[in-house]
């Protein structure tokens, strides 16, 4: 986080203005419309970089549960990285690929992709996480300020994730218990039985 990066407000504004085509359905397991690997390739070319086919492999999806939200987020990050300020900084092929894959992997479990466009807090979280991954800090912040604020948003994210995961496990257990209850076998009336 030693280098000056773009202005945070500019980045979050750009996120809020993400065009619909970057929020369209990523291609996963035969479904969807946007080939995410192709979008990543276009972004690299915009940055004057190139990638071998195998370097784009992480951007092809096979399992909706594992890949759909992650790839949807890659599209949003690609839109952000196409910002003029990043083009000027020219992070290079390796850093771009690492940022796209790494940030999407980190943030996808926490919220659906559209929330990183629609929610103020999620926009800041995405922008700060991306800058940090690229070794940058928001314009006008000291390295310490940037680190503190990133720790605050990512700490909050981790707490949220943990709480959600615990709640989901508890809920699933309660549902299984409710379904298994003896009383449930004496189920109420239906006019017909299939």
């Amino acid at each position: 986080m030693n280098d000056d990066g773009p202005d945070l407000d500019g980045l979050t504004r750009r996120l809020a203005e993400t065009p619909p085509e970057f929020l369209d359905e990523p291609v996963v397991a035969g479904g969807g419309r946007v080939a995410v690997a192709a979008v990543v390739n276009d972004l690299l070319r915009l940055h004057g970089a190139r990638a071998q086919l195998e370097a784009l492999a992480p951007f092809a999806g096979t399992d909706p549960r594992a890949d759909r939200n992650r790839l949807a987020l890659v599209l949003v990050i690609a839109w952000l990285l196409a910002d003029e300020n990043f083009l000027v900084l020219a992070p290079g092929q390796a850093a771009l690929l690492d940022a796209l894959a790494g940030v999407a992997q980190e943030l996808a479990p926490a919220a659906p992709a559209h929330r990183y466009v629609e929610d103020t807090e999620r926009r800041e979280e995405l922008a700060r996480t991306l800058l940090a991954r690229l070794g940058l800090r928001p314009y006008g912040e000291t390295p310490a300020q940037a680190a503190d604020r990133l720790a605050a948003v990512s700490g909050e994210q981790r707490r949220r994730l943990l709480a959600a995961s615990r709640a989901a496990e508890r809920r699933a257990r309660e549902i299984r218990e409710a379904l298994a209850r003896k009383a449930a076998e004496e189920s109420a009336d239906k006019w017909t039985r299939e």
Partner: protein
Amino acid sequence: MNAHATHAAAPDDALDAERFPTLTGHGRRMLDFLRNHPHAPVYRNRSGNRLLAHEVEAQRAYEDQILAAPVGWTPGTVPDWVAPFVAHVFATVPHYRALGSPPRRLTDVAPVGRADFAADVAQFVPDDVPLERMMHFRTTGTTGHPLLIPSHPVVAARYAAYHKRALARAGIAPAAGRGRVGVVLLGCQRRCFTYVSVSPAMGEAGLAKINLHPDDWRDPGDRARYLDALAPEIVAGDPISFAEYLTLPLTTAPRALLSVSMQLLPGLRARLEARFGCPVLDIYSLNEVGPVGVFDPAAGGHVLLQPRLYVEILDAAGRPCTPGQAGEIAVTGGFNFCLPLLRYRTGDFGALASGPDGPVLTGLSGRRPVRYRARGAWINNIDVTHALLPFPLSHFNVHQRADASVVLRLAAGALPWAGDAGTALARVFGTRVDVETLEADGKTLQYTSDMEGAHDG
């Protein structure tokens, strides 16, 4: 009270308050009448409507609403309510939340099937459904994998709304109320879940689920005596129990018969109509979805019953078929708030057509179609159905062995038609057809084949 006519286990009337939260003296008398009638069967289980007072009120309003609401979409055109429904499901159902943002198009939602529910149905229950009164319906289907379907007393009660909608098409408005028996559900199996109840939204009209298998009765003759004493307004069953029902020397007749769970062949339907002089409604219904459609010969198939159920026909890859093309029936929506459905593949096959009263499922077949080898060519199982139409068969199985020989399996009660049915099939296949007794209790796969290519049609 006749001891034989009461519950086999120790009485647990304390639980009746939970089973019948709104029970009045009239309802109590109806329960006593059903349980303690001198010709009553052995009731093996206890059940109840479990509806709270405000839910009874809501049920009446719901029935009125469902009776009046149009299905309101044409095949291939996704209705307006689907997008917000998908968004809500993606926000509240764990399985879908894990997929990320709600897709813009329904066709972007990956279909799910029975195997997904079987793996962990808890992942499909919305976060906002309270669990205190959740219950389940167990289904084994034809694949034999048991599956628990999450449900709720309100959901079970809602079935009546769709049956009333189906009955309205036949010009029948159920009117049973206090002191009358509204519905009798017939089973005919060696083991059957049986109970008595009342319907609070219908003035505590009686409801009984009985088993026509003689083992459940002190005297098989009691079956007709008891049914005549109850004189139910509606009788619901399946082709197997209706075949038995036809043999009883009844002096009363219901206003309508509702047949569910298996294909009702026209021969049996005609005999039931002639015998009881009332409409026989063939309802396509499944535990995961509830009543989906009712057969209407004039419409050429099953007319859809649920205003909030969108139906698609999918190919093997999960893509929508073109209108009129046959494929797997997939459903979105439904009335079970414990298990909202998004492109749920039912495992049943058919096509979708437009009718004057909304979409119609045509060529409905309970399983993936089977084709048979006959006279050197492949024929559709529909051709086999046509050959068997003249016979009042309740359930049957036509099986082609790997060597192309054919066997027709008939329930014991249908063996008098064995010769003629076998001959009719022999004409279709151009070869001799063996006839055997069908040893089955419950659902039967009607069309099966061991021949290579039988499922590739």
